[in-house]
C-alpha cells in the first residue's frame, strides 16, 4: 500500500473532486433554472461614452448598482455603445470547442441583435460575477444556457422600455429585430436607445419571457468562429503568445518518474551559461496537479533556457517515486483476467452465473486498452509576474475560475492577490483542467523579479501528463434461443493510487450501459496499484469503455446471427429515461437515423464492412456507422464515418459539426496507433515520432446529422468520440471476421493505408 504522502494520492484527490464537479448534474433531466434575483443584474453607469451595460451576478450576490464601484465595468456580459456596436464578453475558456462564438450567440439571440453588430471579447476571470468559467465535461452550454439567455433578454426588455417611452406607446406595441426596436414601420436602433436605456431600472429577470425555439433567428445556423480572422493572420491569442516588456523565459525540469525529488543539481554551472539569468530548485508541495520538485532555469530567450536545460545535471531522489511498469501491469492483468470475478462486486442484478449457464450461446473476451496522452499542440505554458503586491498570470487553462483557489493553495497567496487572465487555449482535451503549469510559473515568479514565461518542451508535455488510464475487461455474455441478450458479466481491472478508489477516468459506474438493459448483470472490479497520474481525457471513461461495451455487444449479436441494428434496438427496449440520463427513445432515434444515412445492410465489395456503435455520454446520444476496408496485409482504410447525434437544439451548426468531425478524427487517431507505456516509472514516448497522431492522408469522409429534439441543449465537445473505436472495430469484423480485443490497432498488426 502506498504511503499517504504518495504524490499520486495527492493528485487523485484533487482530480476526483474535479471530476465530481464536472459531472455533478444529471444531464438529460430538465435543467434546474438558474435562480436570479432582481439585484443580480447590475446596471453599470458612468461608463465612458455612455450606453447600456449589464453585469450579471448569480443568485446570492447582494451587490447593488448604487454601491458598485466604477471598476465593475468590465465584469459585464454586454455593452451597447451609443454608436451601435454591441460588445459581448465571453466568460468561458476557448479551448477549440467554439464557446467564444456559441456563448455570445445565445446572448445575441435573446437580445435580437444583428450578429454583424456584435464584437466579442474575453471576459476577466471573476467567478463571483460570471459564475462558472471552466470548460469541462461538455457542460458549458447546459450550465450557462439560462444565464446567458436571461442576460440578453433583460437587456432587450430595457431597450424596449426605452423605445416605448420615447414613442409614448405601450411596450406591448414594440417588437425587436436586427439590433433595433420597432413600432410599426418606425424604428430606434439599440445604439440610439443605449443612453436612455442605461437610466432605466433593471427588470426582474423572472418576469422576462424568453424566446420559444420557433422564434430563433440566429441559433441553429452556421457561424465562423469569432477569432478566425486573428487565427489565420497569426495575431497573438494563445498562452504562448504573451509578450510583456522585460519578459524572461523559463524552463522547469521535474523528475521523469513522478514523485522524485531533487537531491542535487549543477546550479552554479547553469548560471554561468550564456543568456541564463538564474537557476534554482523548487521543492514544491508534492502534488502533481500543483508543484512537484524540480529545477527552474530563467533565461533571456526560450532557446537559451532550452539550451541550458540540456546542460542540466540533476541527481534525483527516487525513493518515493513511481516504479510503474506497463509490461508488468499487463501481465498481472492477464493473469487476473482468467478469474471470472474480481476483488469487489460493484453491481449484481439478477443471477448472472445461472443465466450464463442457461444461455443458448455464450461468448467470452478479454479486452485491453492502453494509457494515452492528451498531447495538445500548444505545449503547457504560462506567463506569471509578481508586481504591485499581486501575482498576475496569463494562463491557457480550461479551469480559469478554479485555478484561483489552486494557485492560492499552492503558492500561499490570498485569492485577492492573484489575477488570472484567460488566453485562448491551443487544445484542451481535458489536459488543461489541471493548472500545474500555472502553479509552476507562479512559483518561479515568486522567486524572480520581473515577468517570466514558463515554456514546457514537447518531451516534458508527454512525460508529465495526467494520462487516460489503460484498463482491462474480462467479459462473458449470453443470448437465449431467440438471440436475445440475457446475461452480461464484466470483471473490470483498473488502477488505484489510494488502495480504495479507482483512478480518475478509470471507474465504471453502476448506471453504465447495458447495466439497466439486461436482466442479469454482474460487474466486479480489481484495482492494481499505480503512481502515474491519471486524469480526464476527452469523454473520460466513455472514451475507453464504450469500445469494450459496444464491441462485445457486437460479439454477442454476431454469435446469435442477428442483425446488429435490430439487436442494439432490442437491447435499448421500451422508450424510457433511465437513471444516469440515458433516454432509450433518443438512443433508438439516432441508431435508426445513422443506419438509414449510412445505407446499413447494403452490399459491399469484398474486404469492406460497416460497423455500428452507440454511446451515451455528457448528455449526448450518439450513434455512428464506420465503413472500412482491410487488405491482405491488414492495412485498414476508414472510408467514411456517419455520425447521428441528439444534443437538443444546436447553437452554432458549423461549430457543432466541427466538434463531431474532430471527435471522429481524435477517436480514430487514438484507437489506431496511440499508446503511452511506462517502465521504471518513466513514460517511454517522448514526441510525435513515438506518438503518431493521425495525418491528413488518413482523414475519412465524415458526415454529421443532428436530431434537434426539444430537450435542453447540451454540449458536443466530447460525446461524438466514444462510439468511434467500436464502430471501426465492428466494421473490421464485418469486413474480414477479425475481432479486435486489444488497442491500439497496431498491436494486432493493423496499419493505416
Amino acid at each position, binding site marked *: 500500500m502506498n504511503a499517504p504522502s504518495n504524490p499520486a494520492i495527492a493528485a487523485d484527490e484533487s482530480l476526483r473532486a474535479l471530476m465530481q464537479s464536472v459531472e455533478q448534474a444529471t444531464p438529460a433531466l430538465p435543467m434546474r433554472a438558474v435562480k436570479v434575483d432582481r439585484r443580480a443584474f447590475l446596471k453599470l453607469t458612468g461608463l465612458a461614452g455612455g450606453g447600456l451595460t449589464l453585469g450579471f451576478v448569480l443568485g446570492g450576490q447582494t451587490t447593488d448598482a448604487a454601491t458598485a464601484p466604477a471598476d465593475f465595468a468590465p465584469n459585464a456580459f454586454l455593452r451597447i455603445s451609443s454608436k451601435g456596436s454591441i460588445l459581448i464578453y465571453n466568460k468561458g475558456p476557448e479551448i477549440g470547442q467554439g464557446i467564444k462564438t456559441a456563448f455570445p450567440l445565445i446572448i445575441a439571440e435573446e437580445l435580437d441583435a444583428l450578429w454583424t453588430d456584435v464584437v466579442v471579447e474575453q471576459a476577466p476571470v471573476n467567478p463571483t460575477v460570471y459564475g462558472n468559467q471552466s470548460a469541462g465535461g461538455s457542460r458549458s452550454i447546459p450550465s450557462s444556457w439560462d444565464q446567458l439567455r436571461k442576460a440578453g433578454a433583460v437587456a432587450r426588455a430595457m431597450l424596449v422600455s426605452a423605445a416605448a417611452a420615447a414613442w409614448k406607446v405601450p411596450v406591448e406595441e414594440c417588437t425587436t429585430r436586427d439590433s433595433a426596436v420597432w413600432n410599426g414601420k418606425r424604428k430606434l436602433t439599440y445604439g440610439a436607445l443605449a443612453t436612455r436605456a442605461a437610466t432605466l431600472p433593471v427588470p426582474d429577470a423572472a418576469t422576462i419571457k424568453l424566446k420559444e425555439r420557433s422564434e430563433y433567428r440566429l441559433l441553429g445556423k452556421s457561424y465562423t468562429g469569432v477569432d478566425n480572422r486573428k487565427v489565420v493572420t497569426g495575431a497573438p491569442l494563445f498562452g504562448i503568445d504573451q509578450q510583456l516588456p522585460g519578459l524572461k523565459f523559463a524552463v522547469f525540469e521535474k523528475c521523469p518518474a513522478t514523485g522524485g525529488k531533487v537531491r542535487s543539481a549543477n546550479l552554479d554551472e547553469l548560471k554561468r551559461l550564456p543568456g541564463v539569468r538564474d537557476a534554482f530548485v523548487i521543492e514544491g508541495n508534492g502534488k502533481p496537479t500543483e508543484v512537484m520538485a524540480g529545477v527552474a532555469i530563467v533565461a533571456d530567450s526560450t*532557446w537559451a533556457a532550452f539550451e541550458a536545460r540540456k546542460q542540466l545535471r540533476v541527481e534525483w531522489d527516487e525513493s518515493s517515486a513511481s516504479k510503474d511498469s506497463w509490461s508488468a501491469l499487463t501481465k498481472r492483468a492477464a493473469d487476473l483476467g482468467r478469474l471470472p470475478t474480481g476483488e469487489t462486486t460493484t453491481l449484481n442484478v439478477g443471477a448472472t452465473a445461472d443465466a450464463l449457464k442457461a444461455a443458448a450461446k455464450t461468448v467470452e473476451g478479454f479486452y485491453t486498452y492502453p494509457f494515452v496522452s492528451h498531447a495538445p499542440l500548444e505545449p503547457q505554458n504560462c506567463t506569471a509576474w509578481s508586481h504591485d503586491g499581486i501575482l498576475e498570470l496569463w494562463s491557457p487553462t480550461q479551469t480559469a475560475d478554479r485555478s484561483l483557489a489552486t494557485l492560492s493553495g499552492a503558492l500561499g497567496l490570498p485569492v485577492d492577490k492573484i489575477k488570472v487572465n484567460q488566453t485562448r487555449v491551443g487544445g484542451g482535451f481535458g489536459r488543461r483542467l489541471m493548472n500545474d503549469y500555472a502553479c509552476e510559473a507562479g512559483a518561479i515568479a515568486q522567486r524572480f523579479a520581473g515577468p517570466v514565461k514558463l515554456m514546457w518542451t514537447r518531451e516534458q508535455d508527454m512525460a508529465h501528463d495526467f494520462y487516460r488510464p489503460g484498463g482491462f475487461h474480462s467479459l462473458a455474455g449470453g443470448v437465449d434461443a431467440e438471440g436475445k441478450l440475457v446475461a452480461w458479466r464484466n470483471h473490470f481491472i483498473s488502477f488505484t493510487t489510494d488502495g480504495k478508489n479507482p483512478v480518475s477516468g478509470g471507474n465504471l459506474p453502476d448506471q453504465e450501459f447495458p447495466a439497466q438493459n439486461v436482466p442479469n448483470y454482474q460487474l466486479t472490479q480489481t484495482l492494481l496499484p499505480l503512481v502515474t497520474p491519471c486524469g480526464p481525457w476527452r469523454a473520460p471513461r466513455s472514451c475507453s469503455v464504450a469500445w469494450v461495451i459496444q464491441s462485445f455487444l457486437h460479439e454477442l449479436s454476431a454469435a446469435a446471427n442477428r442483425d446488429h441494428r435490430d439487436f442494439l434496438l432490442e437491447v435499448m427496449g421500451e422508450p424510457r429515461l433511465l437513471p444516469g440520463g440515458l433516454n432509450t427513445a433518443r438512443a433508438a432515434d439516432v441508431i435508426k437515423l445513422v443506419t438509414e444515412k449510412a445505407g446499413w445492410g447494403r452490399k459491399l465489395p469484398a474486404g469492406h464492412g460497416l460497423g455500428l456503435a452507440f454511446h451515451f455520454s455528457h448528455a449526448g446520444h450518439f450513434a455512428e456507422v464506420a465503413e472500412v476496408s482491410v487488405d491482405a496485409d491488414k492495412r485498414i482504410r476508414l472510408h467514411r464515418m456517419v455520425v447521428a447525434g441528439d444534443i437538443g437544439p444546436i447553437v452554432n451548426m458549423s461549430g457543432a459539426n466541427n466538434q463531431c468531425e474532430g471527435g471522429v478524427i481524435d477517436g480514430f487517431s487514438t484507437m489506431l496507433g496511440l499508446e503511452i507505456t511506462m517502465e521504471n516509472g518513466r513514460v517511454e514516448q517522448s514526441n510525435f515520432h513515438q506518438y503518431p497522431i493521425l495525418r491528413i492522408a488518413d482523414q475519412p469522409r465524415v458526415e454529421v446529422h443532428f436530431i434537434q429534439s426539444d430537450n435542453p441543449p447540451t454540449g458536443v465537445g466530447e460525446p461524438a468520440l466514444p462510439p468511434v473505436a467500436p464502430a471501426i472495430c465492428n466494421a473490421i469484423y464485418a469486413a474480414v471476421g477479425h475481432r479486435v480485443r486489444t488497442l491500439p490497432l497496431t498491436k494486432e498488426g493493423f496499419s493505416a493505408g
Partner: protein
Amino acid sequence: MPMLSLRVNGKDQNADVDPNTPLLWVLRDSLGLVGTKFGCGMALCGACTVLADGEPIRACSTPAGSVAGKNITTIEGLARSQTQLHPLQEAWIEHDVPQCGYCQAGQLMSASALLARTPQPTDAQIDSAMAGNLCRCGTYQRIRAAIHTAAGKLAKSKA
C-alpha cells in the same frame, strides 16, 4: 555577438542572437512575430512552418543563420495587404476551419506553398503537401475543402 540580419515579410530585421538559434525562436522571442508556433521542436508537427524563398521549412529545426539572405515569409506576411487577405485565409474563415487554431498558421503556410506551385491540386496532392502538418483537433476535412475553395478563388482572379 554579431547581429544576425534576416529579411522577414519583406522587411530587413536584425537580431542579437547566435546564428545557430532556431529561426522559430528568433521570430517569436527576438522579433515578436508570435504567429509561428512551437509544437514539437523536432520538425514533426509543422506548427512552425514558414517559407524561405517560397519553400516551406520547419522553423523549429532551421538555424536562423542558414536562412540569412533568403526571403522569409511568416503567417503575419501571408495576407496581400492589411485589408486583403490571401485567398487561403479567406477560405479558412469561410469554411470555419479552426478549432483551437494552434496549428493553422503552419497549415496555411504549407498550403500557400502548395498553391504557388500547384494551382489546382488534387486531394492526393493536398495530402502529400500537407503531410507534415498535424492538426490535433482533426480539422483535415475542412482544410482540404478550404484549399480547393482557395484554388478556385485564385483561378477566378487570374481569369
